[in-house]
């Protein structure tokens, strides 16, 4: 895996896990699914701001 991949790959894996968790679980898992989907976007925005 290239040097640039670990963070996006981890975020993509979390998103996918959240999606499936929302499908299997109910109630709070639906919120987990929604947040995990938006997590990579939020992380990129936060990292971008930190780096100016």
């Amino acid at each position: 895996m290239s040097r640039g991949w670990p963070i996006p790959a981890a975020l993509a894996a979390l998103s996918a896990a959240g999606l499936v968790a929302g499908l299997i679980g109910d109630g709070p898992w639906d919120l987990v699914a929604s947040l995990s989907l938006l997590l990579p976007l939020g992380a990129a925005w936060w990292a971008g701001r930190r780096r100016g």
Partner: protein
Amino acid sequence: MSLRAWSRLHTWSSLACTLFLLLLCLTGLPLIFHEEIGRLTGAEIEATALPPGTPPADLDRVVAAARAARPGEVVQYLIWEDDPAILRLSLAPAADSPPDALTTVLVDARSAAVLGQPRDREGFLYWMLRLHTDLFAGIPGKLFLGAIGLLFVLATVSGAVLYGPFARHGRFGAVRAGRTARLRWLDLHNILGVVTLSWVLVVGATGVVNALAEQVLAVWRADQLAAMTAPWRGQPPVEAPGPVQAAVEAARQAAPGMEIFFVAWPQTPFSSPHHYAVFLRGGTPLTHRVLMPALVDAAEGGLTDLRPMPWYAQALLLSQPLHFGDYGGLPLKLAWAVLDLVTILVLGSGVWLWWRRRRGTAA
């Protein structure tokens, strides 16, 4: 495969599908919120308030009420809505009329009173749905959009491969703001593409599976349904099916703990000419999507077979919520909408970047 080859694959697979992908993203956006839009515009029909604990009406009364509302038509499907107070009935001029001929009657599940006849085949959402699913071209349109989905998955995978070398030069999230507009948008395209990777792959791949729904149904009919109804092959169809309430009770007794999703009348694509097909589903969020058909002899009553659907049908059923994003309430719908908008940005920026590079090369 060399990076140059991956780059070419990404460019041309993306360009080939971008226009239709933009259409799918734009039409998909209102479809995410179809329930909310229906409520806001008053198109959604609601049940009348009755005292809590009011028992459900006999299903044959429900069927009679729907048939009285559509004289000369017969029922093809009886569907349990998410609201347990409402039953949706699909009627058509004949038992074997094609799906295009279906009309809908909503009936109160407790009083058997007709609530209304929603016009499912007109209005803004109907147009969005048809453009999104088949471009008003039926099965060829669906298959074409399925092929577009495959190209999109290819473009996404090749884009992910290209992200690695790109990311070596900068840190995650960094946009080269001080440089040229092309570099800035290249960074944004790459970052937004990689942070939507999981969602795009899931929605793209499940879209392809959904485009094959008719083919999956045909295989199921030729495979499992044919095996379940083999002893009745060659017999004339049941023209006057017996009571549907008894058919539903027979299915319920055979699968306690499961709930009824819908009943298909004899001669419809989901049943045989001799059976009611009662489709049951589980009570947990996951098994709620997984169907089990119970066949009931439409002439003599009594359960004849009950089997879980085969893997390919289950794959189709499980792919639907992952494409629609309708299994997690409003927060998940909002996440779906945000990612849809970001995908539009990725698609648009991709075309712009290609155009700029092409212009630069030509100059």
